[in-house]
């Protein structure tokens, strides 16, 4: 609703003040371009979806493994955790060209970029989740003779799930951004490529098509994660009612 209102205001203001299309196209023109240029655009879209999914999967794997490792080996946590934070402080835009120099134009540098963006929220969320495990339940499990492995799989991991999902939601939206940035590095197709071409030829309408599809894609990923969360953490949702 709010979005629709925004579009209407945008449309009227753009028409009334006669802004040229290359500066700010009206929403109708953007949708028109998106619809007409679909055949042209959708291979790019598809390629970005593939890249984000792959990057997200890798980010999830690495994020989770890092969290588990740091959780089970507290003495490593002290030394590695600062490094993780540093990894988030390096501007990706600066790092990206370097990655190309080091690893070429293939899939690897792109995966590194997306993973770098994705894994951190997952690691932090999972670590927090593990740490928050109720002492009461832990005490019971230990008294009842649970091994460390059982303690982790039967208590700590399920306990961390809700927290982990908050991280996943953030990462899922980041993964699309990460994919687009990684496509700027040099790729044959992808929304990132489409966007660069469009902006350098002043096809502002196409830039907006790219922006809207990135937003839509992020939202889609986000809702998929929410659906999975609802299914996996259903015991909690029942409690909220």
């Amino acid at each position, binding site marked *: 609703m709010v979005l629709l209102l925004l579009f209407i205001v945008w449309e009227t203001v753009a028409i009334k003040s006669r802004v040229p299309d290359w500066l700010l196209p009206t929403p109708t023109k953007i949708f028109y371009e998106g619809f007409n240029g679909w055949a042209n655009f959708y291979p790019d879209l598809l390629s970005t979806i593939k890249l984000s999914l792959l990057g997200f999967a890798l980010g999830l794997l690495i994020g989770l493994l890092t969290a588990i490792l740091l959780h089970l080996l507290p003495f490593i946590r002290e030394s590695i955790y600062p490094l993780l934070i540093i990894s988030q402080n390096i501007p990706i835009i600066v790092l990206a060209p370097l990655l190309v120099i080091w690893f070429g134009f293939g899939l690897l540098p792109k995966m590194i970029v997306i993973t770098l963006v994705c894994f951190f929220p997952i690691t932090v969320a999972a670590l927090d989740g593990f740490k928050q495990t109720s002492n*009461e*339940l832990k*005490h*019971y*499990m*230990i*008294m*009842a*003779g*649970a*091994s460390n492995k*059982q303690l982790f799989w*039967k*208590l700590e991991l*399920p306990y961390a*799930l809700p927290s982990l999902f908050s991280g996943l939601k953030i990462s899922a939206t980041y993964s699309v951004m990460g994919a687009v940035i990684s496509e700027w590095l040099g790729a044959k197709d992808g929304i990132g490529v489409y966007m660069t071409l469009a902006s350098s030829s002043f096809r502002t309408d196409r830039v907006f098509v790219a922006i809207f599809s990135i937003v839509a894609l992020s939202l889609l990923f986000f809702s998929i994660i929410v659906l999975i969360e609802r299914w996996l*953490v259903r*015991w*909690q949702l*029942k*409690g909220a009612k």
Partner: protein
Amino acid sequence: MKVSHLTVSNISKKFDKNEVIKNLAFTIDKNEFVSIIGPSGSGKSTIFSLIGGILSPDQGTIHLDHQVINGKRGFISYMPQTPSLLPWRTIVENVLLGQELQGKKEKKAALEMIDIAGLTGYENAYPHELSGGMKQRASFIRALLSPQSIICLDEPFSALDELTRLDMQKWLLSIWEEHRRTILFVTHNIEEALFLSDRIIVLSNKPSQVAAEFQVPFSRPREESLFLEDEFLEWKRKIYYSLKKTGE
């Protein structure tokens, strides 16, 4: 000589300079119901941690039958003060947890026990859908279904309101009289200990030692009316004074 089921011989435990337990010794026979009563801060939970193997005694040994279980986990089944059911597991899954940790699961036995416990219809409910008393029942049958021969109960009813507590005590007795197990019950409630147990061990203040021991003379099965009998009150007084003496 008769060998007791659980034998605690002269154990001592210090935390830094703080002596919590000193030369504590007691035994429990097979299928006996023994309560430990002590002033607060008398190291009751430390005793459980030692028997449960979370802590090791500085001196002395803990035997289960002929085996030394100092610092070894997994030899007791446990019911804590709070229900401690895993919120993402249904009641059946929770009740089976004790068995699961030791290896095999017997779902049929669990369902039967849930039935006996009066939780029929709640097998597939989640813990938050149950009342406090029901959760404690689930927690108790989880301990009862665990394969270990001895159950340690750590003030299991202290968080419940008076009426529910009385119900739970009666319920526990009825189940236990049917399904005898060795029980070590920690409480600070004299009436509860008298009503439930065969024997009561009174602990002294820190460092904990056995201050007194009472064989409870009431026959089983016990009824609620026991609470009001003169003999019961007489015993209550006796234990109260011995407990008070240790506090001084």
